């Protein structure tokens, strides 16, 4: 994420009075307001900023639980979700988050947009920019695409998953889910089992959980980690993932952990020669009751979905007592509400200059 230094005027022009009003709105919604313009990854957030976002998501969860799930917090704001990759849960999650907050949410999918007509990403973004939108929620198959977009739009950009790079809102909802069960994450152990090489969820979660003080261990076939990583080692700080443990095998990774996270394994990995077969993967890395028994009592089982039941996770544990998979989905809406509110709440608009924002903040 980047600070809003490029939107001269937004912060300064609102002034003290406006800031006060914003704070009032914030406290009504129980939301903290770090001065952010974009959410591109979690690597440039401090633990305190992440905690603020999670705290605000607690308030959002309460709103979701109401009979009338609607607040005017983002009334008059336009949020576009722009998905260049298939996704149901993440897109719907953002859409619901925006709608509960009162924003107008427009969904653009690559197949339905001009992208399929050969228009460049730059021109697509400029076209949307011309329509005065407040936030762009982007999923793109290319790593770094949201960074590129953030350089060419005044709207807040939220990374909803870019290539194999990052998926920050998934990590926030995972942190939120774990925190709601175990409290402080300091010293807690989490094992991530799956396709680390191609997984943006793994990358973002390693950074996120380490930032919050947890110890992260990964396990997967050696063909699914970068060549410069070695099994049975701990990464140094020069890697950008310092302290990450690479287990020799899955049992070692899961042993005495507080959280086990299974990642989706895709048929393409078998086809590209990373795996002999999904059957062998399931046998050697699949999470089942026997393996869950190695974890601490009451350990949580997570999966970012969609699950291949019977491959990376057995149906028995996927729907068992330790599974928090459905909680993750519910929490995803709350966390995305917190993100959208933080980035485009009244008074913090990245689109309008100060005056208009004040009027909206009072409305």
């Amino acid at each position, binding site marked *: 994420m980047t600070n809003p230094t490029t939107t001269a005027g937004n912060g300064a022009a609102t002034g003290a009075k406006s800031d006060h009003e914003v704070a009032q709105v914030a406290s009504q919604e129980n939301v903290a307001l770090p001065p952010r313009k974009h959410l591109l990854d979690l690597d440039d957030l401090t633990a305190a900023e992440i905690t603020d976002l999670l705290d605000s998501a607690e308030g959002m969860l309460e709103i979701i639980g109401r009979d009338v799930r609607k607040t005017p917090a983002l009334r008059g704001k336009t949020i576009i979700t722009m998905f260049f990759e298939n996704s149901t849960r993440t897109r719907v999650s953002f859409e619901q988050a925006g709608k509960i907050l009162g924003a107008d949410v427009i969904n653009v999918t690559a197949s339905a947009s001009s992208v399929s007509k050969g228009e*460049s990403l730059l021109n697509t973004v400029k076209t949307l920019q011309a329509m005065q939108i407040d936030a762009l929620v982007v999923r793109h198959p290319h790593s*770094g695409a949201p960074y590129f977009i953030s350089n060419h739009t005044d709207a807040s950009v939220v990374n909803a998953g870019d290539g194999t790079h990052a998926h920050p809102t998934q990590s926030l909802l995972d942190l939120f889910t774990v925190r709601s069960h175990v409290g402080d994450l300091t010293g807690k152990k989490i094992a991530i089992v799956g396709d680390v090489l191609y997984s943006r969820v793994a990358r973002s979660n390693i950074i996120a959980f380490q930032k919050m003080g947890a110890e992260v261990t990964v396990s997967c076939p050696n063909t699914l980690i*970068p060549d410069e990583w070695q099994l049975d080692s701990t990464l140094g700080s020069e890697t950008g993932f310092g302290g990450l443990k690479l287990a020799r095998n899955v049992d070692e990774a899961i042993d005495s952990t507080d959280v086990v996270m299974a990642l989706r394994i895709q048929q393409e990995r078998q086809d590209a020669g990373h795996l002999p077969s999904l059957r062998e993967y399931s046998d050697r890395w699949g999470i089942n009751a026997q393996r869950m028994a190695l974890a601490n009592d009451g350990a949580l089982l997570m999966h970012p979905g969609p699950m291949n039941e019977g491959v990376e996770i057995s149906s028995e544990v996927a729907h068992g007592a330790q599974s928090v998979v459905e909680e993750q989905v519910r929490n995803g809406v709350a966390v995305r509400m917190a993100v959208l509110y933080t980035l485009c709440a009244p008074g913090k608009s990245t689109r309008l200059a100060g005056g208009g924002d004040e009027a909206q903040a009072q409305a």
Partner: protein
Amino acid sequence: MAARKLAIIGGRVIDPVQGIDRVVDVLISNGKITGVASSSSDNAYDDYEVIDASGKIVSPGFVDLHTHLRDPGQEWKETIVSGTRAAAHGGFTTVCAMPNTDPVQDSAAVVEDVMRRAAADGVVRVLPIGAISVGQHGKQLAPMGELAEAGVIGFSDDGNPVADANLMRQALKYSVELGLPIINHAEDKKIGAGGVMSAGLVATRLGLAGVPAEAETAMVARDLHLADLTKARLHIPHISTIGSLVALRSAKECGVNVTAEVTPHHLTLNDEWVFGLKGEIPAQVGSEAYDTNTKVNPPLRSRADVEAVIEALSEGLIDIIATDHAPHAATDKVCTYDEAAHGINVLETAFASVFGLVDASKISIERLIESLTAGPAAILGRDLGSLKKGFSGDVAIIDPGSKWVVDPNEFASKSVNTPLRGVELTGRVVTTIYQGETVFDLRGAIGTFSEGVKAGAGQ
């Protein structure tokens, strides 16, 4: 122009072929070098046009074995006109045009068209490179004999490595009779399939698919063995990995007929530049990351690889510097990293960027100039790259103390795709003379040419 007599006086002349490194005057008449004379204030050059080069380095005009002029076919990126002017801006008086044009330079007709238009519209010498295979498809040998007769100086399928080892073997073998080198982009495309930058910590951090160094090394090793088998001439373009250097050293020791080039960017930039902070490693990935102007093939390698190629160039294991000047339009670079085209715009920054290594005492100025002049001329087997009497009057004059900031908008090239935008470099080509005519002079307005230059374009 024929009557023009030129005296370049008072400069430090470095001509590795003649073993000259001292202050002498260079005399040119009728487009040819007529000799060098000891500098003296007593020298009277009454009927000469005199260029005062005191405080400057006077070098034979640079020779680039690896240039993409994009003409015919992609004239929005570069043309023979703009590309040869970019060459002149960089001190290059000879450029070898890669055949990945549209149509491909795989027939005499296309090659002759390029040569004819280069002679008419170019401001420096253009020597074409022919394709190895028809259409650069790697299936059937191009008419290499016909191409050689048309004037190509070697054969390359450029960015398309000859994947079929037997076709490579036949190309090498067939070329022996022609006496021309096979220039094969060494990359096993399967090893790093889908990769867009060098594999390693930076790629992992950015979530970009990485190409391991071994994708190059493996094919370099294969090609060296095939060159040994066929006793043909092999030239390895843009060598960039430690492993390739190990294989190259071993092959040279065994007498394989091989030469190798390295680019200015592989000598000076590493994969950390992809973070977009001119080589600094950020604590967090910022919006400047994924700098598409760093996307090039072979990819920018690790620090260790960069140190190794510098040392190899310095000691002569790597024979020459070649630019792999690869201009691309803005639309090819203002996009995601995955979508971006490979290639860096190099001609106009080549000398200065590598001169930084001279300033850092990693390579001598003599070796640098040799690798831009005598070295490539020897591979071409032509009377170029020296200030010997009778050679073409091709000269680059360099101000070694000049500090300048790279502004691609000042490029003569049509394209601006350089990661060096805003970077301060030391050492600058200030004048370029081709066949006795001044084709670039920094003292004129930057990025423009004097009337005399344009008039000289017709030769």
